[in-house]
């Protein structure tokens, strides 16, 4: 059940191994059609066998190049798309195929924050009504109560409650992202998918928003899936990191292990490609430069899908898909070389 709406409640804290969200072999294929009759000719395998665990009260960073399926994964988790296969467990419950009332109730507990704060705020609605919209949809609160809640939410994200009557265009990018965050918090969710929430913001504003996300997490016991291609920010914000490539997760583990001792060749290349703001460090670095581009997700390579760019691929990689294996405590990797 949804917790009592009027107050921003504190949820019980849980131990570090308590998994809030578990995803098993999740797939989502977008059908592609051709011709006047719209015959289905194939599919884009945007998500193609993803395994993830997000621990309660923590942040899992999901990184990877554009088009690798990060956003789609986030959207399937929230059941904005119907999964093609696999299983989604949220708080111990299988939500892969739930419908109707059950789905509505679950949705209130899971929210999303988007990359482009401008595009998802209706320009003709006041900030107050944008934030209150989820409250209306879920018929959570009315009248005075609703106004009070809206003011509370604005305050929680560091905006002046008097701004409730203004329109989105009167705000800067960073402030609009705060409005998006306030709206996501309206129903007092447990879990928020943050889809590149700082990618469109200036460097000096990014830190403000990231600090806010951290504060809110603590205050409201939130669990985040933080989708990003900014590996520096992910190292700062996320306790766990999953590295995705062409619809599949290649490696998953605690942040410090992933960054200090990456096991998957793709993770290694990705980390070595991130520029560091220090000329002396940059000069001394050995970069692993990957050859070529991302293959098409409509037709991924056989065996290991990273093999066409992998600097250490060998015969077996084309013939056999590497298994998703647990190598230590919370550490998972899919590579023949990591066995």
């Amino acid at each position, binding site marked *: 059940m949804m917790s009592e709406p009027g107050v921003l409640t504190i949820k019980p804290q849980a131990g570090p191994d308590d998994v809030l969200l578990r995803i098993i072999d999740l797939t989502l294929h977008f059908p592609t059609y051709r011709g006047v009759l719209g015959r289905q000719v194939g599919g884009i395998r945007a998500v193609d066998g993803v395994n993830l665990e997000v621990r309660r009260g923590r942040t899992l960073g999901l990184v990877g*190049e*554009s088009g690798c399926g990060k956003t789609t994964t986030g959207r399937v988790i929230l059941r904005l798309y119907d999964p093609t296969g696999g299983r989604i467990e949220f708080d111990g419950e299988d939500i892969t195929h739930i419908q109707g009332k059950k789905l509505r109730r679950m949705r209130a507990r899971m929210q999303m924050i988007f990359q482009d704060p401008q595009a998802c705020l209706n320009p003709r609605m006041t900030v107050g009504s944008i934030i209150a919209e989820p409250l209306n949809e879920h018929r959570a609160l009315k009248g005075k109560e609703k106004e009070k809640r809206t003011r509370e939410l604005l305050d929680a994200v560091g905006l002046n409650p008097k701004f409730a009557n203004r329109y989105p265009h009167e705000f*800067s990018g*960073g402030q609009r992202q705060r409005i998006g965050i306030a709206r996501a918090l309206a129903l007092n969710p447990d879990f928020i998918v943050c889809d590149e929430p700082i990618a469109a913001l*200036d*460097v*000096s*504003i*990014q*830190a*403000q928003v*990231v*600090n806010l996300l*951290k504060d809110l997490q603590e205050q409201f016991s939130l669990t985040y899936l933080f989708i990003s*291609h900014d*590996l*520096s*920010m992910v*190292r*700062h914000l996320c306790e766990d990191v999953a590295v995705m490539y062409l619809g599949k997760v290649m490696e998953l583990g605690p942040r*410090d292990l992933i*960054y200090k001792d990456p096991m998957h060749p793709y993770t290694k*290349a*990705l*980390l*070595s*490609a*991130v*520029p*560091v*703001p*220090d*000329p*002396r*460090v*940059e*000069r001394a670095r050995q*970069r692993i*430069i*990957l050859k070529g*581009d*991302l293959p098409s997700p409509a037709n991924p390579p056989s065996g290991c899908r990273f093999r066409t760019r992998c600097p250490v691929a060998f015969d077996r990689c084309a013939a056999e898909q590497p298994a998703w294996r647990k190598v230590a405590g919370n550490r998972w990797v899919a590579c023949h070389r990591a066995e």
Partner: protein
Amino acid sequence: MEVSDLQTVFWSRRTRIYAANGVSFHLNRGELLGVVGESGSGKSVTMMSLLRLLPSPPAEIVSGRVRLGDRDLLSLDPSEMRKVRGGEVGFIFQDPMTSLNPVFTVGYQLMEPLRKHLGLGRSEARKRAIELLSRVGIPSPQDRINDYPHQFSGGMCQRVMIAIALACDPKVLIADEPTTALDVTIQAQILELVQKLRQEMGMSVIWITHDLGVVAGIADRVMVMYGGLVVECAAADDLYANPRHPYTRALLETVPRADMAGQERLKSVGGQPPHLTVFPTSCPFAPRCPHAFDRCRSERPPLMPVGEGHDAACWWDVIEGSPRDDV
């Protein structure tokens, strides 16, 4: 190349935007100058102004000189200016997808400047276009030359843009956020390519970005812009190790690093970048600056030498922790 006191204003019916407010810098032969700053700090406007690429109206270059060799680009007549653009000065624009024309083949877009600037014939231009494509690392260029931009990935489009910019062996290359839209692994490919080409061709490069990491890896000198002004300029090592302007310091403190575990909370700069609707007569960073004092709000600090080849526009001495008393 030497730019002095460049000032550009955008006029509209009701407002003016002071986008570049007296920008001065120089570019040494063979060096790579990194230009960093937040969105709206005037990086693109400055570079487009010196190439006279901004449509007027609304843009007006109010003052400035741009010396290249022994000429002032701002007083060249339009036909000479066209020869400079894409000839002596190559440039790459911000968004790779929009700057290649989707209706022409990649080959046509490469051959066009070769025929125009170097007066090459069709087959010669084609030969050179293929050579350029292979130089920027496009596989089987003789087949790809007839492709359209949409048949190329983002990274490949960016390589083509670089090939076009390099077509006429420019002395100066101006690259505006050439890797911002790309993934890090593709960005790494492009950065490696540019370093290689720079060694081979010995050109000078201006590289615009908002990523302090990208610049750290490739720049000889770095110039930081804020509110349409250059606020600090120094050799890359010096700037990163010893930033003297409060804004540069704040920027370097606020970005987390992928190579180190950081602190629990990011240091952040409060407030917003300036609006640029009035000409700055005070320090544009004053509303957000932890060291601001009276003088900052009444008098705009010019770029002043603070060390060997190191300039900063600030009334405060961050080393001494007191107002500068020598100016």
